[in-house]
Structures are given as structure tokens and as C-alpha cells.
């Protein structure tokens, strides 16, 4: 009998039942969550002043109450969230079963919008890649907004992760030491990494430039090419350290590159939209489709977007590593 009970306790359903009831957490003590009881230790270190003892008792009461509440809350939270997830999945699956079949040309989403883009796209934009012609010509302001989203995200990460260097008190010194420690972790003399990076980084960056410049002829464009160049710069930084990258990429470079690309994008596309809306000649030649120098404004706009994306990806990495440039 006892053996049967042991088998039952080892079974999946028993553990599942325990988990639903909130007594057993499969990740408890196994997942890497650091539990530091800093506050409790600070409480224990207090001297036994009568007023403080009173406060301490009060605090313990509140702590007890919140922990009891949290236990109940977690129990209900788990059950409710499982129920919500299952119901959402079932509702979505029922909806999918009523949708029209995939791959059918008569589906309602293949309407006159995509017909216009496909049939008139080459003639009006000059781009062989219809997607690139669509996002950089018909819906160019959407892409402009997205480049701005990237820039704003980089600014927010800079604000969140910045180390404050003002003042000379001990806390600031500690932070500066922490930053210096992160620099020590760089493999400055890793021969294997440096040799591999010496061969790979130029290839990666040249491939990124190829993807950007051929954005209107083949798959790719500013977003993917910029991300590839950013990844190449990150590899270079990891192999050779901050000293070498700071020679050509500092905060000033980031600021001015992103600012001038966004301004050029805004001005060029505003001009193009203004002349187009007023039925004027824009004077931008479309060229013959298939050449590199063709399709009007799409090539310069691709370069602008690529610069913004590459700078932002590299800036994210640098700011995560050492907090600011």
C-alpha cells in the first residue's frame, strides 16, 4: 500500500494537483532567482529602542499579513490565469476554424490594394522588390515613424542605464568601479576570437552594405542590412575592446548620424509628397528598373534607414555593456 502511495506521489497528476493547489512550485529553488533578505537583516540589526521595537512589531505584523495575502492571491492567480489562457486559446481556435482556407486566391484580403501595388508598383516607384517599393514609397511616413521609434527607444535605454559621474562620494565611486570591472571582462588578448573577427567582420559589414544597396532589387533593405551591420560592429567590439571602437564610434557619431539621416528622410519625403499631391513634376528620375541607380528616392531612403538601424543596434549593446557611450 505504501509503495502504491509513493508511486502516486511521484506521478505527474499528483504534482499537477499540488501545483494547482499552490503548495508545490516546480521551479522553487531550481530557477535562478536570487532571494536576498536584505530588509529582514536590516531589521535584525536595529538596536532595541522601545519605539523601534514597537515599529518592528508593527512591521512584522504587516509582513505577516502581506505574506498570508500573497499566498492566497497566488493560489487564485494561478487558477484564474490557467482558465483565462485555456479559454483564450479555445476561442481563437474556434475563430480560426471559421476563417477561409489559406492559399486561396479568392480570399477577401487579396483585394484591390494588393492588386494596385503589384500591377502599378514597378511603373510608379521603379523598384523591382514590391515590398520595398511599398514601405519606402507608398507608406513612407509609416517607415519614418518607425525609425523615430528606434531612436526614441535608444534614448530611453540611455536614460535608464546611465551611470551618474557627478560628485565624488563612495556610491558613485562604487558604480565607476563596477563599470571598470565590466571592461576588465573583455578578452583583450583572445587570439582565436581576434583572428576570426579579423576575417569575418569585413565580410559581414560588406554583406550588410550589399543588402542595403540592393534593397530595391532583391530581398532585404534598410532594416535587415542595418541589423547585419550592427551585428558585425558588435562582433568587432567583442573581439577588440572599447578602445578601438571609440576611435570611430562615439556618442557624437551616433547623435549626428541618426539626426542627419532622420532629417534627410523627412525633408526628401516631404518634398516628394508635396509635389505629388499638387500634381507637380518632382524632377526625381526613376531610371531603368533593374539598375542599382534607379527607382528615385528609394535608394537614399534605404541608406538612411540602414544607418539609423545599425547605429541603434550597436548603441543598445554598448549601453547595456557599460551604461552610456
Amino acid at each position: 500500500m505504501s509503495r502504491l502511495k509513493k508511486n502516486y506521489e511521484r506521478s505527474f497528476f499528483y504534482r499537477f494537483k499540488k501545483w494547482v493547489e499552490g503548495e508545490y512550485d516546480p521551479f522553487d529553488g531550481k530557477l535562478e532567482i536570487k532571494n536576498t533578505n536584505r530588509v529582514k537583516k536590516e531589521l535584525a540589526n536595529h538596536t532595541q529602542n522601545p519605539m523601534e521595537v514597537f515599529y518592528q512589531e508593527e512591521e512584522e505584523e504587516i509582513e505577516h499579513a502581506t505574506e498570508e495575502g500573497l499566498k492566497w492571491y497566488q493560489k487564485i492567480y494561478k487558477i484564474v490565469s490557467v482558465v483565462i489562457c485555456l479559454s483564450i486559446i479555445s476561442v481563437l481556435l474556434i475563430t480560426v476554424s471559421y476563417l477561409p482556407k489559406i492559399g486561396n486566391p479568392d480570399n477577401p484580403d487579396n483585394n484591390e490594394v494588393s492588386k494596385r501595388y503589384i500591377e502599378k508598383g514597378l511603373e510608379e516607384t521603379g523598384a523591382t522588390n514590391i515590398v520595398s517599393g511599398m514601405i519606402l514609397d507608398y507608406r513612407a511616413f509609416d517607415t519614418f515613424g518607425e525609425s523615430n521609434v528606434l531612436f526614441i527607444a535608444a534614448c530611453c535605454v540611455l536614460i535608464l542605464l546611465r551611470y551618474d559621474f557627478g560628485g565624488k562620494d563612495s556610491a558613485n565611486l562604487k558604480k565607476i568601479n563596477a563599470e571598470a570591472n565590466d571592461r576588465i571582462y573583455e578578452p583583450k588578448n583572445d587570439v582565436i576570437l581576434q583572428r576570426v573577427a579579423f576575417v569575418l567582420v569585413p565580410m559581414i559589414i560588406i554583406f550588410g552594405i550589399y543588402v542595403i544597396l540592393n534593397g530595391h532589387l532583391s530581398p532585404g533593405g534598410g532594416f535587415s542590412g542595418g541589423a547585419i551591420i550592427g551585428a558585425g560592429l558588435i562582433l568587432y567590439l567583442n573581439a577588440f575592446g572599447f578602445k578601438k571602437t571609440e576611435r570611430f564610434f562615439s556618442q557624437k557619431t551616433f547623435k549626428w548620424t541618426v539626426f542627419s539621416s532622420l532629417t534627410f528622410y523627412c525633408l526628401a519625403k516631404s518634398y516628394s509628397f508635396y509635389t505629388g499631391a499638387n500634381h507637380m513634376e518632382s524632377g526625381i528620375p526613376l531610371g531603368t528598373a533593374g539598375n542599382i541607380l534607379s527607382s528615385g528616392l528609394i535608394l537614399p531612403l534605404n541608406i538612411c534607414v540602414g544607418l539609423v538601424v545599425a547605429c541603434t543596434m550597436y548603441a543598445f549593446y554598448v549601453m547595456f555593456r557599460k551604461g552610456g557611450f
Partner: protein
Amino acid sequence: MGGNLFANYEEVVAMILFGIGFTTLLLHRNMIKKIIGLNIMDSAVYLFLASKGYIEGRLAPIVVNNVTDMEVYINPVPSGLVLTGIVVSVSVSALMLALTIRLYRRYHTLDLDEIIIQSKKEGK
């Protein structure tokens, strides 16, 4: 139930992935796991959109030999939408990771419940 559940298996997979991501987001207490769950939800939505634009037996939307006929290429609109979405999702996850680092510096833990308890004690 309609009859197209097994014909639309890509959309079914997208919905299941959405559910898995949502469950990860709700049930885990670790912040990094929550961010991964949100990323999975993101890509599930992109898979749904991209499978809406797919048409069987047609080519990718790149003009070959100056043939501009609607019957040759797939629908390019969802591709454009998803292309913008992927890059935005990177900046969103970078922002969330930066917030996680800030929370870790302040409270020295990744557990959301622990953070809530500590912040309640301090706000008193």
C-alpha cells in the same frame, strides 16, 4: 466549429503559440521569462499575418522579367506590415530588458513578488 480547422494548420499553430506565450507571461515570476513570453506572442501574431498573405503556387513579390500580373505574385501587404513589426519588437524588448536591469540594481532580485513586497515595505 467551422470545417477549416485542419486546413488552416498554420493559423492554428500561430494561435497555440500565442497561448503558450500568454501562459508564460502570466505564470512565471521571473522577469526574463516574462519578456521571452512576450516575444513569443509577438512572433505568433507575425506568423498569423504572414500566413494570411500567402497564396499557393505563386512567387515571392519580386518582379521577374517585367511581368506585373496579379496572378503571379503573393500579397505583399502583410509582408510590409510584419517587416515594420519585427524591428519595433526588438526596441520594445531592449527597453524592457533595460527596465529589468534597473529593477535588479534597486531590489537585487528578479522575482516580481519579492519586488512587490519590498516596494510595499519601502512605500509605507
